[in-house]
């Protein structure tokens, strides 16, 4: 539920993800500019360092130290995890004040993961990075002091592999799994069903999992896991006419953009009633100041 101020360290990446969400305007890689943005933050308590890929940045440790100096209490590194195979780098990062890691992984094996990252060998490195984090957070020195989230981009490629991916992540003791919609060509109804099953699999393994980008009308029965309902942010995105009558219309970000493509609107139905609406509204009203504005 914590919202982080995102600091993009640049577009560089050691992966070549086809669906990389980094936008051109986020590409502010120069150190001076990153520091300037950090200094400009009104409340730098929670900071997320992301890319491209954050770990190759040569000034990463300096930035960590700078963020700590500015009063950051939670510094999250958003990463492919590939460089976390380097034990020295990992311990330096943790020693430097980075205690939260969000590792992007897209499958339970190289076939699906690397079909998305476009880099051979990247899966084994990401897995080893996650294993290192698991080893460290299970050690007496760091018990309860390291938080690991896994971000799985849900695409056409890995729909069939979501459940094995959840099983793999559960075995690595991650603290949270995020299943995030990627790409506009995703068959949403089928994807929502696969995601719903994956969420249940995670719960069965006692791991908290949530989904992003899957509107509540598609996630009936799994509303508790819809990130947009847990961190409700009023949405002003223009939605199709059919969504206007939906009880979640002020919160939901709606169907993927370009809904006309491939009959993407199929499956989206305005939700007319839900036992959760009142409580979600309450959550919206009382949400943490940490929540996104």
């Amino acid at each position, binding site marked *: 539920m914590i919202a982080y101020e995102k600091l993009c360290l640049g577009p560089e990446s050691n992966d070549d993800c086809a669906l990389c969400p980094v936008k051109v305007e986020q590409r502010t890689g120069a150190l001076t500019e990153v520091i300037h943005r950090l200094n400009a933050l009104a409340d730098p308590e929670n900071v997320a360092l992301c890319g491209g890929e954050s770990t190759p940045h040569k000034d990463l440790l300096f930035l960590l130290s700078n963020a700590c100096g500015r009063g950051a*209490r939670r510094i999250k590194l958003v990463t492919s995890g590939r460089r976390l195979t380097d034990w020295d780098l990992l311990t330096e990062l943790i020693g430097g004040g980075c205690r939260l890691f969000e590792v992007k992984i897209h499958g339970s094996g190289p076939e699906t993961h690397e079909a998305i990252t476009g880099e051979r060998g990247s899966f084994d490195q990401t897995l080893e990075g996650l294993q290192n984090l698991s080893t460290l957070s299970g050690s007496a020195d760091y018990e309860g*002091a*390291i*938080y690991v989230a896994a971000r799985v981009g849900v695409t056409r490629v890995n729909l069939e592999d979501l459940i094995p991916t959840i099983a793999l992540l559960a075995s690595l003791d991650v603290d949270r799994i995020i299943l995030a919609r990627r790409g506009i060509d995703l068959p949403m109804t089928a994807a929502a069903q696969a995601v719903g099953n994956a969420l249940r699999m995670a719960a069965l393994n006692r*791991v908290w999992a949530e989904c992003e980008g899957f509107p509540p009308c598609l996630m009936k029965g799994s509303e*508790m896991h819809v990130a947009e309902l847990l961190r409700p942010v009023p949405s002003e995105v223009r939605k199709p006419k059919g969504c206007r009558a939906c009880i979640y219309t002020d919160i939901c970000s709606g169907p993927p953009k370009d809904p006309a493509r491939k009959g993407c609107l199929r499956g989206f139905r305005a939700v007319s009633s839900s036992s959760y609406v009142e*409580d979600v509204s309450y959550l919206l009203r009382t*949400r*943490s100041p940490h929540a996104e504005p």
Partner: protein
Amino acid sequence: MPNHRRRILLVSFNVAGHDCLALGYIKAFALKDPTVSRQTQIDILGFSNEEDSVRQALYYVTEFKPHLIGFSCYVWSMTTILELARSVKQIMPQVPLVAGGPEVGPMADEYLAVHQQALDVVVHDEGEAPFLDLIRHFFAGKGRLEDIAGISFRRGQQVVRNKDRTPIKDLDEIPSPYLSRALTPRDGVTYLQSFRGCPFRCGFCYEAGRHKMLRFFSYERVKAELELVMGDPSIRSFHFVDSVFNLNPKHLGRLAGLLRDANRYNTGLRTIEVFTEQVDEETVRYLLQAGVQSVETGPQTAIPETQKRIGRYFDADKFARGVRLMQEAGIDVWCDLIVGLPGDNFFRCAASVAYSMGLRPARIVISILHVLPGTPLFEKAERFGLAFDPAPPHYVIANDSFPFDQIYNAVLFSSSAAKEYNVALT
């Protein structure tokens, strides 16, 4: 010369290396009796709830060759104690086994009926006076079990319930466990108490099912304990187990003065319970004077409707102000949340987590509702549609607003969210 003293063993399984204050009181009170002091040897045996095994404990207990054993029973240790007691009975069937404490007291007769192979006597409420009577009965043949108020006991297959006992009015009748050396103060795990009882009636709390009347130790007695504990430079911090440390400005002011005067080595007071809505600038001044470094408080839930159902007073704005004042004064505030309260549901739980994070406390502590024997929620379970495990730790299963699947997911969600919040750099 052989030691003919009767050996009494007081056993507890403690959390996080703490001592059992209750057993310290029982030992100190018993040894006040000159005959008991002369003729018995009372030892307290505290095991680690996390690290020691039942067989290990059994070995220790049998090595002591006790003539009477008392167990201090809490929700976290009851299962272990029953396992130990059953084993002890196999080896030493002649030794009377007495159980007391918040887990067994309110269900004394049920425990005796169900666990016939383990327990002989269960104390209903406060244990000092009944246990002394039991020592006199078993070792001096004084009085009949039927005449000891405040206990239930087993006679063959039958459970006999005696009348309840009026609690000791003047708490100074109970010697200090520390001043009498029944317990030795240790850094970080020493508990003191200035009064018993609680003015509040929170539905989930054991204190709410007990005596409404507050009873106080004298300030002279508290002062003497403080001077002992705080006069030891190796003790860097300790705790007060008072249900509400800031009970009222007068009491808090008096305590703060005693703490300030006894504090020669900059000793800190940690994780005391405060009523946050009542915290104002004056309270904060007293807390600082008292050397308070951290406090533990609610809100348990941020949903007013739920608070009302469980009998708690809650004012979100006053609570937030109290937390802010303490944090600004450098006092760490730990906010507690309970998952599974009647009136809540998954999204209400999420709202409580969001509200608590918004207060920016030092830590957020999540726990699952234990429907504890003797609490209002336990007594009125039907009214709340409460389903829970009748065996300890009495985890809630569902209630009329919070079905099981939502409780299960709320535990996963809030534990993850709290961990993410708590990894913050200090």
